[in-house]
């Protein structure tokens, strides 16, 4: 090595010290590997496809089922036929139109609530976990209160007083649903806060906001996405429940209100199964898709489950692609 040449890049700090320059990780790897792995996970992929399918149905509703879903098209309770492929409901409206258009409100409420709940959860969970002490005690107490007070009865009471509209439902759902994400964020924050890079940032005098949002938050991306999927699932299910109870705006067309009208127009009694099965199945499939997506995420980000999947591959004599943990096989039983 020739003299005068320094093998690594150096920087000169403000006080005149010579330090090695930080090594910049190649972009696209590291923090976001879980996102790439997600596309390789069979469960996650299937779940993603199901959810995207319904999102597309919602977006292209005017093309898939043209016409007003609330208009009366024919005699009530017609069985499915070539003209009305899902039949007509108890008042003579087209069930297919209602199912397709119902996706719009149900999914809007689901995703809006999911985003809002995650945002509140992040704000409160991160503050509790980062500041600890008295702030944590108080915020944790509030979280635990909201976790222990039963959500659906509270929602029923709230919607009895509120004049329900799409956005009041979103607000009410977020009000009863933020505590669980907040608790997950808090515990994640508590463990990340102990990491060396956080201590380093504190010592170097970074502001709290900068440490939380630029230092810690990116490391929680997978948890945040996971908890958001859970929140969307909760919101869609609960909106459907409230809708089926007739506690949302019953003149809106959503999967929940479809079920309400099916019951109200005695769909069960007259044997018109086509009035409640399509909307119910849609809710179930979206919920199933979101759960699959979440299980897939869990398998990718949870080291223990990851090891177990590798183990199953070994048991089934599949070749391992990239082993991240040593599989151990118990042969005794």
């Amino acid at each position, binding site marked *: 090595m020739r003299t005068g040449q320094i093998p690594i890049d150096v920087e000169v700090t403000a006080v005149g010290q010579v330090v090695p320059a930080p090594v910049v990780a190649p972009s696209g790897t590291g923090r976001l590997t879980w996102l790439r792995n997600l596309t390789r996970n069979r469960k996650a992929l299937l779940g993603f496809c199901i959810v995207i399918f319904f999102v597309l149905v919602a977006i292209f509703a005017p093309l898939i089922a043209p016409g007003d879903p609330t208009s009366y098209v024919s005699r009530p309770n017609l069985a499915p036929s070539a003209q009305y492929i899902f039949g007509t409901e108890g008042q003579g409206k087209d069930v297919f139109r209602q199912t397709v258009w119902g996706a719009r409100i149900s999914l809007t409420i689901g995703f809006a609530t999911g985003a809002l709940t995650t945002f509140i959860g992040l704000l409160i969970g991160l503050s509790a976990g980062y500041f600890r002490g008295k702030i944590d005690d108080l915020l944790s*107490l509030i979280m*635990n*209160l909201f*976790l*222990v*007070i*039963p*959500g*659906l*009865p*509270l929602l*029923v*009471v*709230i*919607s*009895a*007083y*509120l*004049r329900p509209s799409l956005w009041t439902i979103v607000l009410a759902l977020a009000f009863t649903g933020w505590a669980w994400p907040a608790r997950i964020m808090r515990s994640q924050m508590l463990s990340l806060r102990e990491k060396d890079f956080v201590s380093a940032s504190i010592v170097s005098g970074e502001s709290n906001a900068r440490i939380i949002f630029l230092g810690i938050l990116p490391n929680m991306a997978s948890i945040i996405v996971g908890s958001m999927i859970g929140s969307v699932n909760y919101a869609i*299910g609960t909106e*459907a*429940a409230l809708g*089926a*109870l*007739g*506690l949302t705006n019953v003149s809106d067309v959503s999967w929940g209100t479809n*079920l309400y009208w099916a*019951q109200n127009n005695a769909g*069960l*009694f007259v*044997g018109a*199964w086509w009035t*409640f*099965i399509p909307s*119910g199945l849609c*809710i*179930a*499939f979206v*919920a*199933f898709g979101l*759960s699959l997506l979440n*299980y897939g995420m869990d398998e990718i980000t949870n080291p*223990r*489950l990851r090891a*177990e999947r590798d183990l*199953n591959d070994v*048991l*089934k004599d599949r070749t391992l692609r990239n082993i991240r943990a040593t599989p151990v096989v*118990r042969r*005794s*039983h």
Partner: protein
Amino acid sequence: MRFILRRLGFYIIAAWASLTINFFLPRLIPGDPASTIFASSRGQLRPEQLDQMRAALGLSKEPLLNQYFTYLSHVLRGDFGTSFSAFPAPVTAVIGNGFVWTLLLGGTALIISFILGNVIGIIGSWKRGGLIDNTLPPLLIFIGAFPPFFLALLALYFLAYQFNWFPHLHAYSDTIGTDFNLNFVGSVINHLILPATTIVLVTMGGWVLGMRNTMVGVLAEDYVTMAEAKGLTQRQIMFNYAARNALLPSITAFGIALGFVLSGQILVELIFSYPGLGYLLIKSVTSLDYPLMQALFLMITFAVLGANFIVDILYTRFDPRVRTG
């Protein structure tokens, strides 16, 4: 003991919080219940009755703080006012009846689902990759994704309306008296099967998965290897060594599940017209019976709090570590 006292303190705060939410909700949200009732009476009520209605609902023009203390003292005395829809019965009488049915349905469903789910989880983890482990958990996850009320609708439609295997409505047959005899008990059980099965099916997946994942961890512990080395039978190791330790998270979840059952049950009760608290709650909302609705919300909340507290007490018996903590 300190643990129990701390938990008790928390539940008292929680009870107070739900009382306060219950008080402020109708007062902070725009529009007042009395006007809603007045508007929906379609001219049957005279305008001067509006003020009487407000008084009956405890909505007066007094300062909010005074109203709040009047309200608290009424609740402490167990006075929830008079039900509008079941006039002149006091709210407490209406609720007492519903409570028994909710407890019967929720309790039965929860216990069956807890036992079945955990046993399947234990066996599944023991023979990992076996038949049970490969088929049941995914199937239960799929069923669990169904909203409980939709599953209830399906069960009601196919099993009760189409095949007539089960009764459609209510908690016992209308044609028999409520004397406590074999006939009555049989009818109650017959009416319980469908709603309880629905709840069991929806909730079981959670228990299976939770138990299985904890068991997988516990089975790797040294004391399980030790037990095997001692030559204990498989059954002894499975239940007395592994499952016993893996059960702790499930017990914590039991309290949460109870709240979930009482919440989720509302719809199942409504669909089967099962006369529990949830059914009453929805009926009180649709008939604008605000005193009954408020009392029911409190009742359901207190039931959940009480159940959680009992679980906490049990927990100290199962896990000695929390007793000192």
